[in-house]
């Protein structure tokens, strides 16, 4: 990767990429959701996520110090330079599959930002404290829908089970620690993500129980997003998201 960011910038970019790609995915629902209220919810969550991405990618660019801002990092990097987790790039599928992805991710993000809000590096702590309030709202929204669909009709339950089953294999990657994480902790900016797993399990299990759903069977975890090994889906997301800046570099209005 010729555009590789220095370690702490790469650490900030991971969170920016997670939020950016999930925000882009949710944006695909705009005008297509099953009801107006759902359309508003998904679009507003998308806005929050893209706001987070702007802050984290802006921070990554500032740490790098090479003149790249959030837009430059979002629109002028290629697939292998993106470090988002595989979960967020998964296709929307039906509404239940989208909710399954949001449910697993928002609870992870809530726990992550609770910890990050307390790190020594004030730049990371400020973004996390700001985003935490919004992410808690997302987690409640997604949990409500998991219960409503899971404990709903035979049809909605079957779809919720299928959605969770699709997304489950990508959950382990959220808690994987590598050199970039360890270096960020040493620099006073990082969070021990592995230590979040037990609390995440407890939160997810409590909602699944209320939704009368069984925890999906453990599968072989699929990882690699953090080092740029993505599924085919991300390229398609980027081809749409980056089209304008690729076709007309530097265009503004």
């Amino acid at each position, binding site marked *: 990767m010729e555009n590789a960011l220095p370690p702490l910038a790469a650490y900030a970019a991971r969170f920016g990429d997670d939020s950016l790609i999930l925000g882009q995915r949710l944006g695909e629902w705009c005008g297509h959701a099953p009801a107006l209220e759902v359309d508003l919810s998904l679009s507003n969550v998308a806005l*929050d996520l893209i706001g987070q991405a702007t802050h984290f990618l802006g921070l990554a660019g500032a740490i790098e110090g090479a003149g790249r801002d959030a837009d430059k990092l979002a629109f002028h990097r290629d697939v292998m330079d993106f470090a988002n987790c595989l979960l967020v790039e998964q296709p929307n599928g039906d509404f239940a599959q989208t909710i399954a992805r949001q449910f697993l991710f928002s609870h992870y993000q809530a726990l992550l930002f609770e910890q990050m809000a307390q790190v020594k590096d004030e730049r990371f702590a*400020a973004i996390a404290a700001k985003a*935490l309030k919004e992410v808690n709202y997302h987690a409640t929204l997604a949990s409500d829908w998991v219960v409503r669909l899971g404990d709903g009709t035979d049809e909605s339950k079957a779809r919720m089970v299928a959605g969770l089953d699709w997304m489950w294999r990508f959950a382990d990657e959220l808690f994987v620690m590598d050199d970039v994480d360890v270096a960020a902790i040493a620099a006073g900016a990082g969070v021990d993500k592995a230590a979040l797993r037990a609390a995440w399990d407890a939160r997810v299990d409590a909602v699944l129980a209320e939704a009368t759903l069984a925890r999906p069977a453990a599968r072989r975890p699929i990882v690699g997003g953090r080092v740029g090994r993505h599924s085919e889906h991300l390229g398609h997301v980027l081809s749409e998201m980056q089209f304008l800046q690729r076709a007309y570099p530097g265009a503004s209005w």
Partner: protein
Amino acid sequence: MTQEIKRILESVPDPEIPAVSVVDLGIVRDVSAERVLITPTYTGCPATLAIEQMIRAALDAHGFGDVTIETTLSPPWSTDWISDAGREKLRAYGIAPPPKGAGASALKNAEAAECPHCGSMQTEEVSRFGSTPCKALWRCKACAEPFDRFKCH
């Protein structure tokens, strides 16, 4: 001079909810003769940039072109920073304001909102999100009117 800048900012409306000013909403955090410190409500609020541009235009129009605008994220904005006057303006505009102190409460949005039309507490949530990131859609069971609720945040 600081007082004059404050008065100017009190005349700058929020672009999404023009009934209240950026001061009423607690977006303006600090004012000095050199700079105005503002904070965004939600990270993804599309009005953030518009708000900064409107403040810039108002300052420039009153001869305060040298006063800079700075943005801070910390401490994060809370609905507890909305002024009492701002809450009343929201209610008069038809938006149920967040009760004072609700931003820090564990109950937050689980508590029923007071209908801004008839004052009834017999209300229910219709949609967790409304027309802007800061609002949810509610309905009054007493007067049957729908209304926006400013989310406790």
